[in-house]
């Protein structure tokens, strides 16, 4: 079954099947955040309360925003546009919108630059696990390996200190470019159709291994999978904090004497430091605004909203296909990996083998590349399962990165009518320069990576999502958008969907954006802003490169006469 879009500039490209586009979109959404960010947040805020807020955000923010992006994308595809810039221009018929839409091509490209670097990490860790190079002892040894391998000690350290990272890094870039070169159906769809089931199978194998760990170390009887699952999911729990960092959880069935003994042990291990006991409960959690903002933020980033990838993928879906169902299925697949697999795997493994202190409060990368390797090496058969886990992370990352590079490819192909091989060369050059700068400026706490993540991976995504909603509600019209969404749909759309998209979703988005802005501008002036003010090369160079790419893209849009002629032809509102 292969359908083609008959339209002015549309490329003779379409998804082979709805299953293919669903797997590609869910592959785009499944990434580091699912495996490393979600479990930490759920455990930090107490499973029950966090999950209530999380599912509310899924229903009122995630699903509606994805549907908005799908509707804009498919409409744009019908009109002959496959990137955010052309979509905005074709729907709004305004020249201002095409320059705004470039942000939807630029942001994923910026994210792709550090994603390549991270893929190099996962590939390198997979190799090191498999060959036994990570057969180390003690947290310090794993931290040292991380510092040496990633070159995070100083700028350029990865290229001068004998690290094998550059090999894996360029291998990751090559894999991405080869998949992109093969095109949407023969490259992306082919790859996702095979890698997504493989990813799910690998995740289930690692999950079974983790859940059968029991109490791995008899010397620490309270470190068990049961305790780990309790730390992750119990709506009410008592934790012990040392200077605001969780170090231990008091088991729910502990007697007062046992509780006293645990408290005493923590105080003995941390002499002279502030030790306190905190009760986390369902009601207390639900009253905490931070929890709601964290849950909404997790949904927002987990579903790849605002990346521009869903829009591009949706533009290749034929006119009469059911985009509402495909979108919902892709979201559900993402949630299964995040909640149903990662939620039962990461934290229980870390708690049962290393204790609550190792899992609690660890950063995303700290958990993934320092704590988890140690966890795997401590478990029976860990070398095999560790290698399998990092292979899984690599697959998850590649399915995401190919999707975030596709908007740039589509952009060059439609505005400058480049052939696929030519656009791969141009996108490849843009990515290699940016990714190299990320891998070079690794000092000062991975400054380049964090800078791009802050400006492109966070700020821009909020702004692009706001642009989607403005276009959908204010320019295109909610009823037109909903009509596009329901075209070909065999599932009934919820009755109040228009109201939710018009009022509820923008309000939630505004609240999480304002809260993020407030925390980074007013509560503490973000280090990322200060780095630019100080002129740190690690912060300035990647951003200057992004500005240069924006100027280049604006030039491409401005000089694309052929595309503008087609827009004029198609300016009738109902094509």
């Amino acid at each position: 079954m292969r359908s083609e879009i008959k339209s002015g500039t549309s490329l003779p490209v379409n998804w082979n099947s709805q299953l293919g586009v669903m797997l590609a979109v869910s592959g785009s959404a499944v990434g580091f955040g699912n495996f490393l960010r979600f479990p930490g947040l759920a455990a930090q805020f107490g499973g029950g309360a966090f999950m209530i807020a999380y599912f509310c955000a899924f229903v009122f923010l995630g699903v509606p925003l994805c549907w908005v992006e799908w509707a804009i994308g498919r409409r744009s595809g019908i009109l002959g546009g496959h990137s955010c810039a052309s979509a905005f221009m074709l729907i709004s018929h305004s020249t201002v919108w095409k320059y705004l839409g470039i942000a939807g091509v630029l942001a994923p490209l910026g994210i792709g630059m550090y994603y390549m670097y991270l893929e190099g990490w996962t590939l390198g860790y997979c190799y090191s696990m498999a060959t036994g190079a990570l057969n180390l002892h003690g947290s310090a040894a794993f931290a040292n390996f991380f510092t040496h391998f990633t070159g995070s000690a100083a700028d350029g350290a990865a290229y001068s200190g004998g690290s094998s990272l550059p090999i894996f890094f360029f291998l990751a870039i090559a894999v991405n470019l080869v998949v992109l070169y093969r095109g949407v159906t023969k490259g992306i769809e082919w790859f996702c159709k095979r890698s997504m089931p493989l990813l799910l199978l690998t995740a289930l194998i690692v999950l079974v291994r983790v859940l059968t760990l029991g109490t791995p170390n008899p010397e620490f009887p309270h470190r068990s999978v049961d305790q780990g699952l309790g730390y992750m999911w119990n709506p009410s729990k008592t934790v012990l904090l040392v200077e605001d960092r969780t170090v231990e959880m008091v088991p729910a069935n502990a007697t007062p004497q046992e509780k006293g003994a645990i408290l005493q042990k923590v105080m003995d291990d941390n002499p002279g430091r502030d030790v306190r006991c905190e009760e986390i409960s369902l009601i207390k959690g639900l009253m905490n605004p931070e929890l709601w903002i964290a849950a909404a933020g997790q949904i927002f980033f987990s579903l790849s909203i605002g990346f521009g990838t869903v829009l591009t993928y949706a533009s290749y879906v034929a006119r009469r296909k059911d985009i509402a169902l495909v979108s919902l299925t892709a979201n559900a697949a993402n949630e299964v990996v995040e909640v149903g697999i990662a939620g039962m795997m990461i934290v229980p493994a870390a708690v049962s083998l290393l204790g609550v202190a190792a899992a609690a409060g660890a950063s995303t990368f700290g958990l993934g590349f320092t704590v988890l390797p140690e966890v795997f090496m401590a478990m029976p058969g860990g070398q095999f399962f560790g290698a399998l886990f990092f292979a899984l992370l690599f697959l998850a990352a590649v399915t995401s990165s190919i999707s975030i590079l596709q908007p740039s490819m589509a952009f060059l192909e439609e505005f400058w009518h480049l052939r696929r091989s030519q656009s791969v060369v141009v996108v490849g050059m843009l990515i290699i320069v940016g990714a190299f700068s990320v891998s070079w400026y690794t000092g000062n706490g991975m400054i380049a990576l964090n800078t791009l993540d802050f400006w492109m991976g966070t700020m821009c995504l909020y702004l692009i999502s706001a642009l989607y909603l403005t276009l959908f509600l204010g320019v295109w019209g909610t009823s037109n958008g909903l009509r596009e969404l329901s075209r070909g749909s065999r599932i009934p759309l919820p009755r109040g969907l228009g109201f939710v998209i018009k009022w509820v979703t923008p309000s939630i988005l505004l609240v999480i954006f304002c809260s993020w802005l407030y925390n980074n501008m007013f509560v503490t002036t973000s280090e990322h802003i200060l780095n630019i003010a100080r002129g740190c090369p690690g912060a300035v160079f990647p951003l200057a490169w992004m500005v240069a790419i924006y100027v280049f893209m604006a030039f491409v849009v401005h000089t694309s006469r052929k595309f503008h002629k087609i827009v004029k032809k198609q300016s009738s509102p109902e094509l």
Partner: protein
Amino acid sequence: MTIPGIITMLLSIGFVWTLLIVCFIRLIKQENLPQREKISKS
């Protein structure tokens, strides 16, 4: 792990798996629909 913890976990995981299975079955049915129509026409 407490009983409310087990309930939270089962409800959350049950919800996402049910959603995926229901959507996936409908998607597969739609995928096969044109083939069935072709067969019935012939």
